[in-house]
């Protein structure tokens, strides 16, 4: 039986297009220092460090965890690196939690980061597959045909993506750490932005960001003696599937459904839409909000877009999605999943500031990566299970 554990410290950087003021190590250290201060501990209290980032090609620095060990003061401590593409921030937090759940360590520090300005993600994600046809154009080029498939299948009107984008950009203005602070978007203006990867518009795409997120996770024994709010980890789940196989459901991948089913079962949730107070979901392209609402079992199939249109996912709706502004407002890729997990923790700790959802008791963090093939989720609560 796994041991109970909790998030007791959350620290993130100011996310920006280019943090030229710091190196990768400085960026990571900024988040770590804030998480340790938030947890009111020092690095000496940390038993192990689990670090994650997206593909090394994004910055062109291979195995950065080796040289980051210095910046993390990891001397004499175990350091682990996790990689599951864009979902890595989520899966890294889960691996960290599992070290505590397994009873191996009492206090674990976990970090996700990306310094996109040091490299070129569009290039890194468009490297030709050997001897294939080089028509692939970055992540947008990969996901756009899948979005078109969703629109065709669900009959969603074409402005749904823009509604999500305006909501997330508006929410981000309440989050001082968010990369984009753009308060003046309207649906009308959003619909005038150009199609980059038709049917995906400019407004409906995430920015490229530099940023990091760090969390401190403690065992129940230690957390009980620890002053301050905690986010108890009720359940974690991860699933994966191959990128391509005959008959693969690309719009709503089976691995995503299985990940959510596993999470709901472990957390004792029978009606996610009613029982979850706030959802931080990985939405790098706006259309993925309705698509994931369906995939994770919140909305019925082909109905997710109606929830968006009806304002269900607004800050004031019955299921607020991404009050932090989400990936659409900050995308340091390797940190983006941990930002979802950490923002979920902040909500149930009552520490989300201006974007706090009043009375949030149960929050879900979600991340996906690769060709919609890696999924990671956790459910955290202000109360013990």
């Amino acid at each position, binding site marked *: 039986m796994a041991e109970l554990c909790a998030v007791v410290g959350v620290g993130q950087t100011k996310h920006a297009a280019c943090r*030229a*003021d710091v190196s990768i190590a400085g960026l990571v250290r900024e988040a770590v220092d804030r998480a340790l201060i938030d947890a009111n501990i020092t690095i000496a209290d940390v038993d192990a460090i689990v670090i994650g980032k997206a593909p090394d090609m994004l910055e*062109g620095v291979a195995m950065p965890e080796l040289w980051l060990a210095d910046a993390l003061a990891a001397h004499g401590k175990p350091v682990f690196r996790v990689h599951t593409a864009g979902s890595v921030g989520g899966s890294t937090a889960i691996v960290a939690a599992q070290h505590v759940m397994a009873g191996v360590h009492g206090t674990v520090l976990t970090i996700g980061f990306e310094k996109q300005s040091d490299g*070129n993600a*569009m*290039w890194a994600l*468009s*490297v*030709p*597959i*050997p*001897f*294939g*046809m*080089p*028509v*692939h*154009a*970055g992540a*947008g*080029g990969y996901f*756009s*045909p*899948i979005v*078109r*498939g*969703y629109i*065709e*299948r669900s009959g969603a009107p074409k402005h749904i993506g823009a509604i999500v984008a305006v909501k997330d950009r508006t929410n981000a203005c309440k989050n001082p750490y968010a990369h984009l602070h753009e308060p003046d978007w309207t649906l009308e203006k959003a619909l005038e932005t*150009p*199609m*980059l*990867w*038709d049917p*995906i518009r400019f407004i409906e795409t995430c920015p490229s960001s530099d940023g990091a997120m760090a969390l401190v996770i403690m065992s129940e024994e230690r957390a009980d003696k620890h002053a301050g709010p905690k986010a108890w980890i009720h359940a974690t789940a991860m699933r994966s599937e*191959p990128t*391509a*196989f*005959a*008959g*693969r*459901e*690309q*719009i709503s991948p089976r691995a995503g459904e299985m990940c959510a089913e596993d999470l709901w079962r472990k957390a004792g949730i029978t009606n996610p839409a009613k029982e979850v107070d706030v959802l931080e979901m990985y939405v790098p392209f706006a259309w993925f909000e309705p698509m994931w609402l369906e995939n994770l079992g919140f909305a019925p199939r082909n109905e997710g877009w109606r929830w968006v249109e009806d304002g269900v996912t607004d800050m004031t709706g019955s299921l607020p999605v991404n009050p932090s502004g989400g990936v659409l407002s900050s995308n340091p890729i390797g940190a983006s999943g941990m930002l979802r997990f950490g923002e979920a923790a902040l909500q149930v700790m009552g520490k989300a500031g201006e974007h706090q959802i009043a009375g949030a008791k149960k929050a879900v963090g979600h991340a996906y990566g690769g060709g919609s093939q890696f999924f990671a989720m956790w459910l955290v609560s202000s109360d013990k299970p």
Partner: protein
Amino acid sequence: MSEADGLMRLRLPIAVTYNWSAGPNATSHLAGLMEGKLIGKRCPSCSSVYFPARNGVCPKCARILAEDVTVGPKGTITTFCIVNVPFLGQKIKLPYVAAQILLDGADISMQHLIQECEAEDVRIGMRVEPVWKDRSEWGPSMENIEHFRPTGEPDQVMGSESGAS
């Protein structure tokens, strides 16, 4: 090198060339392309036909793919994207249509370029055929096909195949 607030930023190149062991499945695919043939592989368990059979095994059944199957050359567009965004390493003039094409006889789509029609006329279910480059330019690559173009046949009703892999 540029300096902001007295801090250096260095602009440095990165380039890699590498060897790739294609293995028996990709080898038969690539050897086929050098003769203008589209050769896929059938799974002995679920009978799915993979083109190209990039892996040695069926991703669903984990059975080793052995039987060659010639697919296409015509196919149907299952979904597509109109690319308007310029990026490093790009070789094709914008805007272009990158489509998922399900070749006749295959059970998984592959991505290729659509030309010889306006981007706004491309549809899910549209029938297309390959236009090969001059044989003198052929190598072990899907780039031997310059692009796909509409055949003019009636659209195929895709149903649940729409937007699928």
